[in-house]
Protein backbone atom coordinates (compact mmCIF):
# COMPACT_ATOMS: atom_id res chain seq x y z
CA UNK A 1 0.00 0.00 0.00
CA UNK A 2 1.28 3.47 -0.83
CA UNK A 3 1.50 5.68 2.21
CA UNK A 4 1.02 9.41 1.86
CA UNK A 5 2.26 12.00 4.27
CA UNK A 6 -1.04 13.81 4.66
CA UNK A 7 0.69 16.88 6.12
CA UNK A 8 2.48 17.46 2.83
CA UNK A 9 -0.72 17.39 0.81
CA UNK A 10 -2.31 20.79 0.72
CA UNK A 11 -3.76 23.07 -1.94
CA UNK A 12 -0.33 24.33 -2.91
CA UNK A 13 1.11 21.05 -4.03
CA UNK A 14 -1.91 19.41 -5.57
CA UNK A 15 -1.70 20.07 -9.31
CA UNK A 16 -4.95 20.07 -11.24
CA UNK A 17 -4.24 19.46 -14.86
CA UNK A 18 -6.41 21.79 -16.98
CA UNK A 19 -8.64 19.77 -19.30
CA UNK A 20 -10.47 20.77 -22.43
CA UNK A 21 -14.25 20.60 -22.50
CA UNK A 22 -15.85 17.43 -23.77
CA UNK A 23 -17.09 18.90 -27.07
CA UNK A 24 -13.61 20.23 -27.97
CA UNK A 25 -12.15 16.87 -27.08
CA UNK A 26 -14.61 15.18 -29.46
CA UNK A 27 -13.87 17.68 -32.20
CA UNK A 28 -10.16 17.02 -31.73
CA UNK A 29 -10.79 13.29 -32.12
CA UNK A 30 -12.64 13.89 -35.38
CA UNK A 31 -9.91 16.21 -36.63
CA UNK A 32 -7.15 13.75 -35.80
CA UNK A 33 -8.98 10.92 -37.59
CA UNK A 34 -9.51 13.02 -40.73
CA UNK A 35 -5.92 14.30 -40.80
CA UNK A 36 -4.59 10.78 -40.32
CA UNK A 37 -6.60 9.57 -43.32
CA UNK A 38 -5.40 12.49 -45.42
CA UNK A 39 -1.75 11.92 -44.45
CA UNK A 40 -2.12 8.31 -45.59
CA UNK A 41 -3.69 9.42 -48.86
CA UNK A 42 -2.00 12.67 -49.76
CA UNK A 43 1.66 12.60 -48.73
CA UNK A 44 3.59 10.90 -51.53
CA UNK A 45 6.94 9.13 -51.14
CA UNK A 46 8.51 11.80 -53.31
CA UNK A 47 7.54 14.91 -55.24
CA UNK A 48 5.24 17.89 -54.83
CA UNK A 49 2.04 17.73 -52.81
CA UNK A 50 -0.32 20.40 -51.58
CA UNK A 51 -0.20 21.29 -47.91
CA UNK A 52 -3.56 20.84 -46.20
CA UNK A 53 -5.40 21.44 -42.95
CA UNK A 54 -8.52 20.53 -41.01
CA UNK A 55 -10.11 22.92 -38.56
CA UNK A 56 -13.09 23.46 -36.28
CA UNK A 57 -14.58 26.46 -34.56
CA UNK A 58 -13.96 26.76 -30.83
CA UNK A 59 -17.17 27.42 -28.94
CA UNK A 60 -15.73 27.21 -25.45
CA UNK A 61 -15.48 30.79 -24.22
CA UNK A 62 -12.85 29.82 -21.66
CA UNK A 63 -10.42 28.83 -24.38
CA UNK A 64 -8.88 31.88 -26.07
CA UNK A 65 -9.03 31.24 -29.80
CA UNK A 66 -11.54 31.25 -32.64
CA UNK A 67 -10.50 28.15 -34.59
CA UNK A 68 -8.28 25.18 -33.91
CA UNK A 69 -6.46 23.64 -36.87
CA UNK A 70 -4.21 20.71 -37.57
CA UNK A 71 -2.11 21.18 -40.68
CA UNK A 72 0.26 19.15 -42.75
CA UNK A 73 2.74 21.46 -44.43
CA UNK A 74 4.99 20.32 -47.24
CA UNK A 75 8.60 20.55 -46.06
CA UNK A 76 10.11 23.16 -48.34
CA UNK A 77 13.62 21.86 -47.79
CA UNK A 78 13.16 18.06 -47.91
CA UNK A 79 11.43 16.16 -50.66
CA UNK A 80 8.67 13.79 -49.55
CA UNK A 81 8.58 15.17 -46.02
CA UNK A 82 6.02 17.23 -44.13
CA UNK A 83 5.49 19.07 -40.86
CA UNK A 84 2.48 18.16 -38.75
CA UNK A 85 1.44 21.29 -36.87
CA UNK A 86 -1.26 22.38 -34.50
CA UNK A 87 -2.53 25.97 -34.55
CA UNK A 88 -4.98 28.20 -32.74
CA UNK A 89 -6.38 31.29 -34.48
CA UNK A 90 -6.65 34.54 -32.51
CA UNK A 91 -10.30 35.47 -31.81
CA UNK A 92 -10.02 39.03 -33.18
CA UNK A 93 -6.88 39.19 -35.28
CA UNK A 94 -5.74 37.43 -38.45
CA UNK A 95 -2.82 35.76 -36.67
CA UNK A 96 -2.39 32.30 -35.27
CA UNK A 97 -0.03 30.53 -32.92
CA UNK A 98 1.44 27.26 -34.19
CA UNK A 99 3.47 24.47 -32.77
CA UNK A 100 5.23 21.66 -34.57
CA UNK A 101 4.13 18.19 -33.47
CA UNK A 102 6.36 16.09 -35.69
CA UNK A 103 8.28 16.37 -38.95
CA UNK A 104 9.19 13.60 -41.35
CA UNK A 105 7.87 11.31 -44.07
CA UNK A 106 4.37 9.78 -44.20
CA UNK A 107 5.28 6.75 -42.11
CA UNK A 108 6.97 8.79 -39.40
CA UNK A 109 3.99 11.13 -39.12
CA UNK A 110 1.50 8.28 -38.97
CA UNK A 111 3.56 6.41 -36.36
CA UNK A 112 3.63 9.57 -34.28
CA UNK A 113 -0.12 10.09 -34.59
CA UNK A 114 -0.74 6.49 -33.55
CA UNK A 115 1.20 6.95 -30.30
CA UNK A 116 -0.85 6.22 -27.21
CA UNK A 117 -0.41 9.70 -25.71
CA UNK A 118 -0.85 11.65 -28.96
CA UNK A 119 -4.27 13.01 -28.00
CA UNK A 120 -2.91 14.22 -24.65
CA UNK A 121 -0.10 16.03 -26.42
CA UNK A 122 -2.59 17.68 -28.76
CA UNK A 123 -4.77 18.84 -25.85
CA UNK A 124 -1.80 20.26 -23.96
CA UNK A 125 -0.55 22.05 -27.05
CA UNK A 126 -3.95 23.63 -27.69
CA UNK A 127 -3.91 25.07 -24.15
CA UNK A 128 -0.35 26.31 -24.57
CA UNK A 129 -1.08 27.98 -27.91
CA UNK A 130 -4.24 29.57 -26.60
CA UNK A 131 -2.26 31.11 -23.73
CA UNK A 132 0.46 32.41 -26.00
CA UNK A 133 -2.12 34.25 -28.12
CA UNK A 134 -3.35 36.25 -25.14
CA UNK A 135 -0.26 38.47 -25.28
CA UNK A 136 -0.28 38.95 -29.02
CA UNK A 137 -0.70 42.37 -30.54
CA UNK A 138 -0.50 42.89 -34.27
Amino acid sequence: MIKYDIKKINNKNIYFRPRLKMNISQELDKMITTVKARVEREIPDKGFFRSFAENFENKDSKLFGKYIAMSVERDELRDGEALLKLSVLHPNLPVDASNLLVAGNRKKILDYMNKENFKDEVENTVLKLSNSLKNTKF
Partner: protein
Amino acid sequence: MRIVGKNIARFFAKPEQSLLVDVIKLNNRNKNISLDKARDVIDGKLLEPKLAELGTTSVQIERKLKEQFPAAKKEIENIFLNLNSVAGISARPKGSVSIITKLEREFLHGAPIKSFDDAYKIVRDGIGDRILLKPLPELSSKEIKKMLQEFKLDGRELSKKEMQILEKYVYNHPMSKDEMRMGFPIFEKFSRPLIEKQTQQAVDYISLGIIKDRMNKGLSIAEIKEKGLLSEELLQKLQTEDIKPINFSLINNYRGEFGLPTFTNGQLQQIERAAGGNITIISRPDVLDFDKYPKEYLDKMKKCIRQSGYRTCQGNIVHQNGANGECQFRDIFTNNFAEYEHIAYDLRMGKNTLGPLFDDYKKEISKLSDAKYEKYTEYLQQCYNYYNRKSLGLPAKKPSLPKGFNKILSEDNMKKLHDANELRLKDLGKNFTQHFEDVA
Protein backbone atom coordinates in the same frame (compact mmCIF):
# COMPACT_ATOMS: atom_id res chain seq x y z
CA MET B 1 15.57 65.06 -0.69
CA ARG B 2 12.29 65.88 1.03
CA ILE B 3 9.34 63.59 0.63
CA VAL B 4 5.81 64.86 0.98
CA GLY B 5 2.99 62.51 1.95
CA LYS B 6 3.91 59.14 3.43
CA ASN B 7 6.83 57.65 1.55
CA ILE B 8 5.77 58.45 -1.96
CA ALA B 9 7.98 60.52 -4.24
CA ARG B 10 8.37 61.05 -7.97
CA PHE B 11 11.39 59.31 -9.41
CA PHE B 12 12.89 60.85 -12.57
CA ALA B 13 14.35 57.88 -14.42
CA LYS B 14 15.18 59.79 -17.61
CA PRO B 15 14.82 63.43 -18.72
CA GLU B 16 11.07 64.23 -18.85
CA GLN B 17 10.16 60.69 -17.75
CA SER B 18 9.13 59.94 -14.21
CA LEU B 19 7.08 57.56 -12.08
CA LEU B 20 5.78 57.39 -8.51
CA VAL B 21 7.76 55.23 -6.09
CA ASP B 22 7.83 54.31 -2.42
CA VAL B 23 11.24 55.63 -1.40
CA ILE B 24 11.50 53.70 1.88
CA LYS B 25 10.75 50.39 0.16
CA LEU B 26 13.21 51.23 -2.56
CA ASN B 27 15.97 52.09 -0.08
CA ASN B 28 15.26 49.00 2.02
CA ARG B 29 15.25 46.79 -1.09
CA ASN B 30 11.85 45.60 -0.02
CA LYS B 31 10.44 43.64 -2.97
CA ASN B 32 7.00 42.88 -1.57
CA ILE B 33 4.15 43.72 -3.88
CA SER B 34 0.57 42.49 -4.03
CA LEU B 35 -2.05 44.03 -6.25
CA ASP B 36 -5.72 43.12 -6.20
CA LYS B 37 -7.87 44.34 -9.06
CA ALA B 38 -11.10 44.38 -7.02
CA ARG B 39 -9.50 46.39 -4.21
CA ASP B 40 -6.92 48.59 -5.94
CA VAL B 41 -8.60 49.74 -9.14
CA ILE B 42 -11.22 52.48 -9.27
CA ASP B 43 -12.73 53.76 -12.54
CA GLY B 44 -10.27 51.66 -14.48
CA LYS B 45 -7.25 53.26 -12.78
CA LEU B 46 -4.83 52.01 -10.15
CA LEU B 47 -5.00 53.91 -6.86
CA GLU B 48 -2.01 56.21 -6.29
CA PRO B 49 -0.34 54.28 -3.41
CA LYS B 50 -0.62 51.10 -5.48
CA LEU B 51 0.75 52.91 -8.51
CA ALA B 52 3.73 53.86 -6.33
CA GLU B 53 4.06 50.20 -5.30
CA LEU B 54 4.12 49.22 -8.96
CA GLY B 55 6.59 52.06 -9.63
CA THR B 56 8.89 50.73 -6.92
CA THR B 57 8.78 47.26 -8.46
CA SER B 58 9.45 48.79 -11.90
CA VAL B 59 12.59 50.53 -10.66
CA GLN B 60 13.69 47.30 -8.96
CA ILE B 61 13.16 45.40 -12.23
CA GLU B 62 15.12 48.06 -14.12
CA ARG B 63 18.00 47.63 -11.67
CA LYS B 64 17.92 43.86 -12.01
CA LEU B 65 17.90 44.13 -15.81
CA LYS B 66 20.84 46.52 -15.72
CA GLU B 67 22.80 43.91 -13.79
CA GLN B 68 21.82 41.16 -16.24
CA PHE B 69 22.34 43.31 -19.32
CA PRO B 70 26.13 43.04 -20.01
CA ALA B 71 26.14 39.23 -20.05
CA ALA B 72 22.91 39.07 -22.07
CA LYS B 73 24.27 41.53 -24.63
CA LYS B 74 27.52 39.61 -24.92
CA GLU B 75 25.56 36.39 -25.47
CA ILE B 76 23.76 37.84 -28.51
CA GLU B 77 26.90 39.49 -29.86
CA ASN B 78 28.83 36.22 -29.61
CA ILE B 79 26.25 34.51 -31.80
CA PHE B 80 25.44 37.14 -34.42
CA LEU B 81 27.90 40.01 -34.51
CA ASN B 82 30.59 38.28 -36.56
CA LEU B 83 28.23 37.06 -39.28
CA ASN B 84 28.91 38.60 -42.72
CA SER B 85 25.24 39.43 -43.21
CA VAL B 86 24.90 41.36 -39.94
CA ALA B 87 25.51 45.11 -40.05
CA GLY B 88 25.35 45.65 -36.31
CA ILE B 89 23.52 44.93 -33.07
CA SER B 90 21.82 47.36 -30.77
CA ALA B 91 20.74 46.36 -27.28
CA ARG B 92 19.21 48.00 -24.22
CA PRO B 93 17.68 47.04 -20.90
CA LYS B 94 14.10 48.27 -20.55
CA GLY B 95 13.70 51.43 -18.48
CA SER B 96 11.43 51.78 -15.44
CA VAL B 97 8.90 54.13 -17.12
CA SER B 98 8.43 51.70 -19.96
CA ILE B 99 8.24 48.82 -17.45
CA ILE B 100 5.50 50.44 -15.36
CA THR B 101 3.46 51.22 -18.50
CA LYS B 102 3.60 47.55 -19.47
CA LEU B 103 2.90 46.23 -15.96
CA GLU B 104 -0.07 48.54 -15.46
CA ARG B 105 -1.57 47.68 -18.84
CA GLU B 106 -1.17 43.92 -18.31
CA PHE B 107 -2.47 44.09 -14.74
CA LEU B 108 -5.57 46.00 -15.84
CA HIS B 109 -6.07 43.35 -18.53
CA GLY B 110 -6.08 40.62 -15.89
CA ALA B 111 -2.45 39.53 -15.38
CA PRO B 112 -1.95 38.72 -11.68
CA ILE B 113 0.80 40.61 -9.83
CA LYS B 114 1.18 39.09 -6.39
CA SER B 115 4.98 39.15 -6.20
CA PHE B 116 8.12 40.67 -7.71
CA ASP B 117 8.60 37.49 -9.74
CA ASP B 118 5.09 37.78 -11.23
CA ALA B 119 5.92 41.32 -12.35
CA TYR B 120 9.37 40.36 -13.66
CA LYS B 121 7.87 37.57 -15.79
CA ILE B 122 5.45 40.02 -17.43
CA VAL B 123 8.37 42.08 -18.76
CA ARG B 124 9.17 39.57 -21.47
CA ASP B 125 11.17 42.14 -23.44
CA GLY B 126 13.33 43.14 -20.46
CA ILE B 127 16.46 43.06 -22.60
CA GLY B 128 15.83 44.28 -26.13
CA ASP B 129 18.26 43.16 -28.81
CA ARG B 130 18.10 44.23 -32.42
CA ILE B 131 20.08 42.34 -35.02
CA LEU B 132 20.43 44.60 -38.04
CA LEU B 133 20.87 42.87 -41.37
CA LYS B 134 22.86 44.27 -44.27
CA PRO B 135 21.05 45.22 -47.49
CA LEU B 136 21.67 43.15 -50.60
CA PRO B 137 23.39 44.77 -53.59
CA GLU B 138 21.02 46.38 -56.10
CA LEU B 139 19.95 43.90 -58.79
CA SER B 140 20.91 44.81 -62.36
CA SER B 141 18.22 44.69 -65.04
CA LYS B 142 20.00 41.67 -66.52
CA GLU B 143 19.81 39.83 -63.19
CA ILE B 144 16.13 40.65 -62.79
CA LYS B 145 15.34 39.42 -66.32
CA LYS B 146 17.17 36.16 -65.60
CA MET B 147 15.26 35.70 -62.34
CA LEU B 148 11.94 36.32 -64.12
CA GLN B 149 12.80 33.89 -66.92
CA GLU B 150 13.82 31.14 -64.50
CA PHE B 151 10.98 31.64 -62.00
CA LYS B 152 8.45 28.82 -61.67
CA LEU B 153 5.35 28.88 -59.51
CA ASP B 154 5.10 25.59 -57.58
CA GLY B 155 7.05 23.93 -60.37
CA ARG B 156 5.01 25.27 -63.29
CA GLU B 157 5.41 28.09 -65.83
CA LEU B 158 3.45 31.28 -65.18
CA SER B 159 0.48 32.19 -67.38
CA LYS B 160 0.85 35.35 -69.47
CA LYS B 161 -1.41 37.30 -67.10
CA GLU B 162 0.46 36.09 -64.01
CA MET B 163 3.78 37.09 -65.57
CA GLN B 164 2.45 40.56 -66.43
CA ILE B 165 1.37 41.15 -62.85
CA LEU B 166 4.61 39.78 -61.46
CA GLU B 167 6.60 42.12 -63.72
CA LYS B 168 4.54 45.05 -62.50
CA TYR B 169 5.28 44.01 -58.93
CA VAL B 170 8.98 43.45 -59.50
CA TYR B 171 9.51 46.76 -61.34
CA ASN B 172 7.38 48.60 -58.79
CA HIS B 173 4.87 49.91 -61.33
CA PRO B 174 1.57 51.36 -60.09
CA MET B 175 -1.06 48.67 -59.44
CA SER B 176 -4.69 48.48 -58.42
CA LYS B 177 -5.62 46.81 -55.11
CA ASP B 178 -7.08 43.86 -57.03
CA GLU B 179 -3.86 43.39 -58.97
CA MET B 180 -1.91 43.59 -55.72
CA ARG B 181 -4.14 40.94 -54.12
CA MET B 182 -3.71 38.64 -57.07
CA GLY B 183 -0.01 39.32 -57.59
CA PHE B 184 1.27 39.41 -54.04
CA PRO B 185 1.43 35.62 -53.42
CA ILE B 186 3.39 35.22 -56.68
CA PHE B 187 5.68 38.14 -55.84
CA GLU B 188 6.29 36.67 -52.40
CA LYS B 189 7.42 33.36 -53.89
CA PHE B 190 9.55 35.20 -56.43
CA SER B 191 11.25 37.18 -53.63
CA ARG B 192 12.00 34.17 -51.41
CA PRO B 193 15.54 33.58 -52.73
CA LEU B 194 16.36 37.24 -52.03
CA ILE B 195 14.90 37.14 -48.50
CA GLU B 196 16.80 33.94 -47.81
CA LYS B 197 20.02 35.41 -49.18
CA GLN B 198 19.67 38.27 -46.72
CA THR B 199 18.62 36.30 -43.64
CA GLN B 200 19.78 32.69 -44.07
CA GLN B 201 22.95 33.11 -42.03
CA ALA B 202 20.94 34.48 -39.09
CA VAL B 203 18.40 31.65 -39.42
CA ASP B 204 21.21 29.06 -39.49
CA TYR B 205 22.75 30.38 -36.29
CA ILE B 206 19.35 30.60 -34.59
CA SER B 207 18.80 26.93 -35.49
CA LEU B 208 22.28 25.94 -34.32
CA GLY B 209 21.91 27.93 -31.10
CA ILE B 210 18.57 26.28 -30.37
CA ILE B 211 20.10 22.83 -30.93
CA LYS B 212 23.06 23.68 -28.71
CA ASP B 213 20.69 24.80 -25.96
CA ARG B 214 18.78 21.53 -26.28
CA MET B 215 22.06 19.61 -26.18
CA ASN B 216 22.88 21.33 -22.89
CA LYS B 217 19.57 19.90 -21.65
CA GLY B 218 20.31 16.34 -22.83
CA LEU B 219 19.77 16.11 -26.59
CA SER B 220 22.40 13.90 -28.24
CA ILE B 221 24.07 14.08 -31.66
CA ALA B 222 22.58 10.66 -32.42
CA GLU B 223 19.06 12.01 -31.81
CA ILE B 224 19.75 15.07 -33.95
CA LYS B 225 20.76 12.78 -36.80
CA GLU B 226 17.93 10.32 -36.28
CA LYS B 227 15.22 12.98 -36.09
CA GLY B 228 16.74 15.03 -38.92
CA LEU B 229 16.75 18.21 -36.83
CA LEU B 230 19.52 19.86 -38.86
CA SER B 231 20.71 19.71 -42.47
CA GLU B 232 24.02 17.92 -43.18
CA GLU B 233 25.76 21.26 -43.63
CA LEU B 234 24.59 22.62 -40.27
CA LEU B 235 25.37 19.34 -38.54
CA GLN B 236 28.93 19.72 -39.80
CA LYS B 237 29.07 23.25 -38.37
CA LEU B 238 27.68 22.07 -35.06
CA GLN B 239 30.50 19.55 -34.78
CA THR B 240 33.34 21.80 -35.91
CA GLU B 241 32.45 25.33 -34.67
CA ASP B 242 32.10 26.74 -31.18
CA ILE B 243 28.30 27.14 -31.26
CA LYS B 244 26.69 29.23 -28.52
CA PRO B 245 23.30 28.21 -27.12
CA ILE B 246 20.15 30.32 -27.49
CA ASN B 247 16.74 29.68 -25.94
CA PHE B 248 13.87 30.96 -28.09
CA SER B 249 10.36 30.21 -26.86
CA LEU B 250 8.26 32.17 -29.36
CA ILE B 251 8.76 33.86 -32.71
CA ASN B 252 6.52 36.58 -34.09
CA ASN B 253 6.80 37.19 -37.84
CA TYR B 254 5.16 40.62 -38.24
CA ARG B 255 4.38 42.08 -41.64
CA GLY B 256 1.86 44.37 -43.31
CA GLU B 257 -0.90 43.37 -45.70
CA PHE B 258 1.33 43.39 -48.80
CA GLY B 259 4.63 43.16 -46.96
CA LEU B 260 7.24 40.48 -47.44
CA PRO B 261 8.19 38.51 -44.34
CA THR B 262 11.58 38.82 -42.65
CA PHE B 263 11.91 35.02 -42.55
CA THR B 264 10.28 32.84 -45.21
CA ASN B 265 8.05 29.89 -44.43
CA GLY B 266 10.88 27.49 -45.27
CA GLN B 267 13.17 29.29 -42.83
CA LEU B 268 10.57 29.10 -40.07
CA GLN B 269 10.23 25.39 -40.81
CA GLN B 270 14.00 25.03 -40.35
CA ILE B 271 13.80 26.74 -36.94
CA GLU B 272 10.75 24.69 -35.91
CA ARG B 273 12.53 21.46 -36.80
CA ALA B 274 15.55 22.46 -34.72
CA ALA B 275 13.34 23.42 -31.78
CA GLY B 276 11.36 20.18 -32.04
CA GLY B 277 8.04 21.54 -30.79
CA ASN B 278 9.57 23.78 -28.12
CA ILE B 279 8.84 26.97 -30.01
CA THR B 280 5.58 28.71 -30.87
CA ILE B 281 5.32 30.69 -34.09
CA ILE B 282 2.90 33.59 -34.36
CA SER B 283 2.21 34.51 -37.97
CA ARG B 284 -0.45 35.35 -40.53
CA PRO B 285 -2.31 32.28 -41.80
CA ASP B 286 -3.91 34.22 -44.68
CA VAL B 287 -0.63 34.32 -46.62
CA LEU B 288 -0.09 30.56 -46.69
CA ASP B 289 -0.66 28.74 -49.97
CA PHE B 290 -3.36 26.52 -48.45
CA ASP B 291 -6.46 27.29 -46.39
CA LYS B 292 -5.84 26.61 -42.74
CA TYR B 293 -9.06 28.32 -41.63
CA PRO B 294 -12.27 29.34 -43.43
CA LYS B 295 -11.23 31.94 -45.99
CA GLU B 296 -14.32 34.16 -45.47
CA TYR B 297 -13.47 34.49 -41.79
CA LEU B 298 -9.85 35.46 -42.45
CA ASP B 299 -10.91 38.00 -45.09
CA LYS B 300 -13.14 39.67 -42.50
CA MET B 301 -10.24 39.79 -40.04
CA LYS B 302 -7.75 41.32 -42.51
CA LYS B 303 -8.86 44.84 -41.62
CA CYS B 304 -7.25 44.28 -38.21
CA ILE B 305 -3.71 43.96 -39.56
CA ARG B 306 -1.82 47.03 -38.47
CA GLN B 307 -2.11 49.18 -41.57
CA SER B 308 1.26 50.87 -41.29
CA GLY B 309 2.91 47.66 -42.48
CA TYR B 310 5.03 47.16 -39.36
CA ARG B 311 7.56 44.55 -40.28
CA THR B 312 10.00 42.64 -38.11
CA CYS B 313 10.74 39.14 -36.96
CA GLN B 314 11.07 39.02 -33.21
CA GLY B 315 11.54 36.23 -30.75
CA ASN B 316 11.11 35.91 -27.02
CA ILE B 317 14.27 34.50 -25.53
CA VAL B 318 15.44 33.53 -22.10
CA HIS B 319 19.08 34.49 -21.82
CA GLN B 320 21.54 32.02 -20.32
CA ASN B 321 21.63 34.15 -17.14
CA GLY B 322 17.83 33.95 -16.85
CA ALA B 323 17.03 37.45 -18.18
CA ASN B 324 13.93 37.70 -20.36
CA GLY B 325 14.64 39.27 -23.71
CA GLU B 326 13.21 40.09 -27.08
CA CYS B 327 15.41 39.65 -30.10
CA GLN B 328 14.41 41.49 -33.29
CA PHE B 329 15.72 40.88 -36.78
CA ARG B 330 15.42 43.67 -39.35
CA ASP B 331 17.30 45.05 -42.31
CA ILE B 332 18.92 48.41 -41.59
CA PHE B 333 16.68 50.42 -43.95
CA THR B 334 13.49 49.04 -42.40
CA ASN B 335 14.94 49.57 -38.95
CA ASN B 336 15.64 53.26 -39.61
CA PHE B 337 12.07 53.81 -40.81
CA ALA B 338 10.60 51.81 -37.91
CA GLU B 339 12.33 54.20 -35.48
CA TYR B 340 9.83 56.92 -36.34
CA GLU B 341 6.99 55.18 -38.22
CA HIS B 342 5.19 54.39 -34.96
CA ILE B 343 4.70 58.03 -33.93
CA ALA B 344 1.49 58.37 -35.96
CA TYR B 345 0.04 55.21 -34.39
CA ASP B 346 1.14 56.22 -30.88
CA LEU B 347 -0.44 59.65 -31.18
CA ARG B 348 -3.63 58.21 -32.63
CA MET B 349 -3.79 55.80 -29.68
CA GLY B 350 -3.49 58.72 -27.26
CA LYS B 351 0.11 58.18 -26.19
CA ASN B 352 1.78 61.53 -25.84
CA THR B 353 5.29 60.89 -24.66
CA LEU B 354 6.97 62.27 -27.71
CA GLY B 355 7.95 65.75 -26.54
CA PRO B 356 7.14 69.26 -27.75
CA LEU B 357 8.82 68.97 -31.16
CA PHE B 358 5.99 66.71 -32.30
CA ASP B 359 3.18 69.10 -31.36
CA ASP B 360 2.42 70.31 -34.92
CA TYR B 361 2.58 66.79 -36.27
CA LYS B 362 0.24 65.69 -33.49
CA LYS B 363 -2.27 68.43 -34.36
CA GLU B 364 -2.36 67.29 -37.99
CA ILE B 365 -2.78 63.63 -37.04
CA SER B 366 -5.63 64.41 -34.66
CA LYS B 367 -7.44 66.39 -37.40
CA LEU B 368 -7.57 63.39 -39.78
CA SER B 369 -10.88 61.61 -40.17
CA ASP B 370 -10.79 57.81 -39.83
CA ALA B 371 -10.96 57.40 -43.61
CA LYS B 372 -8.13 59.85 -44.15
CA TYR B 373 -6.06 58.28 -41.40
CA GLU B 374 -6.49 54.93 -43.12
CA LYS B 375 -5.22 56.45 -46.36
CA TYR B 376 -2.28 57.93 -44.47
CA THR B 377 -1.35 54.56 -42.97
CA GLU B 378 -1.45 53.07 -46.47
CA TYR B 379 1.21 55.62 -47.35
CA LEU B 380 3.28 54.47 -44.35
CA GLN B 381 2.82 50.88 -45.50
CA GLN B 382 4.15 51.84 -48.93
CA CYS B 383 7.17 53.42 -47.20
CA TYR B 384 7.84 50.15 -45.36
CA ASN B 385 7.62 48.23 -48.62
CA TYR B 386 9.88 50.77 -50.33
CA TYR B 387 12.65 50.35 -47.75
CA ASN B 388 12.22 46.58 -47.77
CA ARG B 389 12.51 46.41 -51.58
CA LYS B 390 15.59 48.61 -51.41
CA SER B 391 17.19 46.32 -48.86
CA LEU B 392 16.53 43.29 -51.10
CA GLY B 393 18.09 45.02 -54.11
CA LEU B 394 14.76 45.23 -55.98
CA PRO B 395 13.73 48.28 -58.03
CA ALA B 396 12.08 50.72 -55.59
CA LYS B 397 10.31 54.03 -56.11
CA LYS B 398 9.94 56.20 -53.05
CA PRO B 399 6.23 56.82 -52.40
CA SER B 400 5.06 60.41 -52.19
CA LEU B 401 2.59 61.74 -49.65
CA PRO B 402 -0.90 61.53 -51.20
CA LYS B 403 -2.57 64.79 -52.26
CA GLY B 404 -4.65 66.51 -49.63
CA PHE B 405 -2.26 65.88 -46.73
CA ASN B 406 -0.20 68.54 -44.98
CA LYS B 407 3.52 68.16 -45.81
CA ILE B 408 4.24 67.95 -42.12
CA LEU B 409 2.97 64.34 -42.34
CA SER B 410 5.51 63.29 -44.95
CA GLU B 411 8.00 60.57 -44.17
CA ASP B 412 10.88 63.02 -44.72
CA ASN B 413 9.44 65.33 -42.09
CA MET B 414 8.85 62.46 -39.66
CA LYS B 415 12.51 61.59 -39.99
CA LYS B 416 13.55 65.21 -39.42
CA LEU B 417 11.38 65.43 -36.29
CA HIS B 418 12.73 62.13 -34.99
CA ASP B 419 16.35 63.15 -35.58
CA ALA B 420 15.83 66.55 -33.96
CA ASN B 421 14.15 64.92 -30.99
CA GLU B 422 17.01 62.45 -30.58
CA LEU B 423 19.44 65.38 -30.45
CA ARG B 424 17.22 67.19 -27.95
CA LEU B 425 17.07 64.11 -25.70
CA LYS B 426 20.81 63.63 -25.99
CA ASP B 427 21.26 67.24 -24.95
CA LEU B 428 18.88 66.88 -22.01
CA GLY B 429 20.67 63.72 -20.95
CA LYS B 430 24.10 65.38 -20.76
CA ASN B 431 23.72 66.74 -17.25
CA PHE B 432 20.95 64.44 -16.13
CA THR B 433 21.17 62.14 -13.15
CA GLN B 434 18.31 60.02 -11.86
CA HIS B 435 16.67 61.78 -8.89
CA PHE B 436 13.57 62.03 -6.68
CA GLU B 437 11.23 64.99 -6.44
CA ASP B 438 8.50 65.83 -3.95
CA VAL B 439 4.93 64.98 -4.73
CA ALA B 440 3.06 68.20 -4.12
